[in-house]
């Protein structure tokens, strides 16, 4: 035997797997048939739908807001870059669970039932001139905006945007500055350069961590119970468990659901990464990657 260590390892793993299968098959607590009968019921399928919708919406909006924040962060304008920095600092510091509970309780500061937008300090300023009135432009019904689902969405999007801002920023910085110079020299403006030249190349760096973020988001939707949102996958499964006193089978069912959903995401990620690596395949051979040039050009 050329690699005895490997064969010992294989043997150990074989025994452990056999033990695990033994546990799965012989232990009655798993209640397999009960699990299969209950894990696809209508409330649970609806919970899975909510989980998927919440994941997709949070990621789409989070990525868009993240791109805006990343561009702000890289702006030469100090106010813009500082605001983006402060945003990321705050929303990366607060745990997602805390943020979701907070979002669920925002109704407290809009106790009159209206979220109004207009001039800040309008009543106080008008008071100074002895005028009664306000300068509110429009208002939203806080009970509607801050209901379970939208409060959960707000919490998740705000949190996700902070992480995505950092990922997108790293992606943009990974693109050689010669790329935007070449685009500018062709008469393209900055937004066009960002959209057509820089971001498509940044995607190669942005996509893998965004895939991780999406998977994390799928799992973190289980936290929205704290808002509270109740028609979500994990809550619905647990509800079955507490109603029937079959706690363990539904936990296994939850694991299987999340594994299945994550697997679908992994397939999607694979195809997206392939799409955005166009033009970079040939580099793997002996062709050297062009060395990025510093802003000033190699030799002046």
């Amino acid at each position, binding site marked *: 035997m050329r690699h005895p260590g490997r064969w010992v390892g294989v043997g150990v793993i074989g025994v452990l797997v056999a033990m695990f299968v033994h546990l799965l098959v012989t232990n009655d607590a798993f209640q397999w048939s009960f699990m299969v009968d209950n894990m696809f019921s209508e409330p649970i399928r609806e919970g899975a739908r909510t989980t998927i919708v919440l994941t997709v919406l949070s990621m789409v909006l989070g990525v868009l807001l993240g791109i805006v924040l990343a561009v702000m962060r890289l702006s030469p304008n100090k106010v813009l870059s500082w605001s983006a920095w402060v945003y990321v600092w705050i929303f990366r510091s607060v745990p997602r669970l805390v943020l979701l509970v907070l979002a669920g309780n925002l109704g407290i500061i809009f106790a009159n039932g209206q979220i109004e937008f207009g001039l800040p300090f309008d009543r106080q300023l008008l008071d100074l001139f002895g005028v009664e009135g306000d300068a509110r432009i429009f208002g939203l019904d806080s009970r509607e905006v801050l209901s379970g689902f939208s409060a959960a969405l707000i919490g998740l999007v705000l949190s996700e945007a902070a992480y995505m801002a950092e990922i997108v920023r790293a992606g943009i910085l990974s693109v*050689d500055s*010669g*790329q935007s*110079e*070449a*685009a*500018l*020299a*062709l*008469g*393209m*403006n*900055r937004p*066009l350069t960002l959209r*057509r*030249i820089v971001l*498509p*190349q940044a995607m190669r760096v942005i996509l893998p961590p965004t895939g991780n973020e999406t998977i994390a988001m799928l799992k973190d939707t289980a936290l929205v119970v704290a808002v509270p949102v109740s028609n979500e996958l994990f809550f619905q499964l647990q509800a079955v468990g507490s109603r029937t006193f079959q706690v363990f089978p539904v936990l296994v069912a939850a694991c299987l659901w999340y594994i299945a959903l994550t697997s679908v995401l992994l397939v999607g990620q694979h195809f997206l990464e392939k799409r*955005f690596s*166009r*033009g*970079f*395949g*040939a*580099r793997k051979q002996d*062709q050297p990657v*062009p*060395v990025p*040039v510093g802003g*000033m*050009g*190699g*030799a*002046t």
Partner: protein
Amino acid sequence: MTDADPRPATTGVPMVVAEAVHKSFGHLEVLKGIDLVVERGQVMVVVGPSGSGKSTFLRCINHLEQINAGRLWVDGELVGYREHGGKLHELPEKVIARQRASIGMVFQRFNLFPHLTALQNVVEAPMRVRNHKRADAERRGRALLDQVGLAAKVDSYPGELSGGQQQRVAIARALAMDPKLMLFDEPTSALDPELVGEVLDVMKDLARQGMTMIVVTHEMGFAREVGNELVFMDEGVVVERGRPADVFTRPQQERTKSFFSKIL
């Protein structure tokens, strides 16, 4: 195509006029007052040791660098600024982009867009900046790639091309905007020696067609063959200028002599 002839009839105004151009990076003064005139259809070759400011000067001409003092005109139009009450005010980005669109630039490291094929590289700006129809832009793009000898490579990605081929695509990409002026920033310095010739040949063709060109290069053979004027820069000033043959054979300044003695 509205602009079949890249060079409108000579109007008498020189293509490029630089007047006391100054440029600093922080405390480092890179250009210390450059005065130059490039006539239409002329090929000006700029040489000098590295750090002499020649690339920076080239980058000021299409406003990739902002100048700190002086004036720079291209085709009679002040580049990047408008003058108001004796002061320079930077132009809005839209106007600067329009000015840049008619000045082609070729970079030392090619800077092709790696996620686009050769043809897509060439048609990107005509379609997005000039709003040309895809069919028109692609017809012109194929013709230009043919002109630089790359008709067979239209669908290749830059990563699949040699350095010389990439630089020729970059030249075609610049020409697709029908520039009135072409700037070359050490276009052959990043190339393997055996690939330099194919790029220089394309540039010679271009010069023969009457394109106004400013070329920063170390290729003295090219300077001698197609250059109308040779400019030697050192430490941010123009040390010497004249007909290439004259400057090569009878340099007047000590610094020019010592530079040529090192490289020739």
